[in-house]
């Protein structure tokens, strides 16, 4: 093959990749454009034409809408609480399953694995009735309590990773008389960092995006979360797309920022979760 032919083949290849990238990035970009246009601009210009200037009034209008800032606060609070609990209790359980010996361990672990087969929707109605029974409907507790004590999926991921760490280190620490708690903080946390970051990201994204459960357990705006607020935007700002899209970006941008910072970890963490070890 001549150099020219090879160069044109490469150009074609990269052009193909770029076109695909436009499809995946496009919806974000168009939403950004529209969120910075006036209403006349959204209807008067093509969706793919960038805004003339950074018109910020859409965002201030949406955030000043009664309750919207509250939705954002609620989502942030619930997501942080959920993530902190799920990772803390998850690490503890995963450590016990991976590195401690106790009667019934393997049996219990199979039970955790079996719960992975249960689709979320199966527990929806009974969980709601339980929350009602305990008068927790429309409280912050209802929003994060069911997820606070750890998720079997991330416990499974962390247990697999913890088991792959060299066992000599743990044995040496025990011989030196380290308590299990000390082993956990001094050895496991530093060595298991990649998978703990993974578990943290999984929990955070789950909490941030969660919709159906918050939708049914809250009905007052003071307790509702961002996703529920956004689902109501279209009926609140009927066909004011500049405002509706600005509101959606309030939810989309934080995850984009996280992706920009943790891109490598996220890609690796997704791949870690797919490997059957």
């Amino acid at each position, binding site marked *: 093959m001549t150099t020219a032919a090879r160069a044109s083949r490469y150009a074609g290849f990269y052009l193909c990749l770029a076109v695909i990238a436009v499809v995946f990035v496009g919806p974000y970009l168009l939403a950004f454009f529209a969120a910075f246009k006036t209403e006349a601009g959204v209807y008067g210009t093509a969706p793919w034409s960038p805004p003339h200037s950074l018109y910020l009034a859409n965002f201030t209008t949406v955030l000043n809408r009664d309750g919207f800032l509250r939705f954002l606060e609620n989502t942030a609070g619930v997501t942080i609480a959920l993530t902190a609990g799920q990772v803390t209790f998850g690490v503890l359980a995963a450590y016990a399953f991976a590195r401690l010996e106790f009667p019934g361990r393997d049996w219990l672990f199979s039970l955790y694995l079996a719960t992975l087969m249960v689709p979320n929707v199966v527990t929806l109605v009974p969980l709601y009735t339980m929350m009602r029974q305990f008068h927790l409907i429309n409280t912050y507790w209802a929003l994060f309590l069911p997820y606070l004590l750890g998720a079997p999926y991330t416990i499974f991921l962390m247990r697999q990773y913890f088991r792959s760490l060299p066992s000599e280190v743990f044995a040496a620490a025990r011989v030196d008389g380290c308590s299990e708690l000390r082993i956990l903080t001094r050895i496991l946390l530093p060595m298991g960092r990649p998978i703990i970051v993974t578990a943290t990201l999984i929990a955070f994204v789950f909490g941030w995006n969660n919709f159906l459960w918050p939708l049914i357990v809250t009905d007052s705006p003071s307790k509702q979360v961002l996703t529920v607020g956004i689902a109501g935007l279209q009926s609140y700002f009927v066909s004011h797309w500049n405002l509706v899209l600005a509101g959606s970006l309030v939810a989309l941008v934080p*995850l984009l920022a996280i992706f920009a910072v943790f891109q490598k970890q996220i890609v690796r963490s997704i791949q870690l979760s797919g490997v059957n070890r």
Partner: protein
Amino acid sequence: MGLADLRLPSSVAPPAPPKWRRTGRRRLRQLATAGPFILPSLAGVVVFLLIPVVLVLLLSFVKWNFLQPPHWAGFANFVTMARYHHVFHSLAITAYYVLWNIPVQTVIALALAMLLNRRLPGMGLFRALYVLPYMSTPVAMAVVWSWLFQAQNGLVNRLLLIAGLHGPNWLGDQATALPVIAMMATWQYAGYNMLFFLAGLQTIPSQLYESASIDGASGWQQFRRITLPLLNPTMLFVLVTDVIGSFQVFDQVYVTTQGGPGSATEVINYNIYATGFQNFDVGSASAMSLLLFGVILVITVLQFRFFRNRTTYEVS
């Protein structure tokens, strides 16, 4: 017995306790050590997963609207869910959705992985851009999509107009609403699944392809005889997890169509939500979620069977 269980001999050895008591004591000690680590998560699994699974079974046999006390209804809910909540229609709609979503999504994911599986500059950047949609909040992205697919002035129909075509009212038309929602999910998860295929492709030794091309195998033959069979474990993982997720689609439907137009997008999860939390028919909603559980379980088992029966070649 481990090294840690040996006691130092004292000058006057006390009579050794019977063996069962020693192992019993060791087990107690192990439980005391492991307890604090395991109990919080175990409490979570029992209270928020196991008890609800038992409860949903019980609830599916009672009539209850959250207000009056529940009463035993036998199998009445299973009749009601079919007769008044058209559960089988919903199940068919959901299956139709899964068929629009999963095959396209999986083929695209595999194609993207094969495209990016080479040592060239910039592959990391494109990989990141393709995974980006996975990081979007489904509810918020569904709002963006319903704007793009508007009948008038939506991006898609404007582009079609340039080509001289009149696009339909995508989300307001019974024929197109469900495929558009499926396309939305495909857009969101294709890049995510690509990552699994990329990881799978990287485990295939390149010598296999080299010797195959020496033997004169075409690119398509290499794909059929080497790539696909060796990707079987990845394919199983991707299909099982995606099908389970796809059967539970809700957020996008809630935002874009609320089950409409007519009942064209009334997927089963939306029906469960409407039955349980808008019509307050707790029993029927429970019965429906049990039915969905059963369907997902059967399909998952079938997928495992299908992939186990296909030969995978051990590579040494």
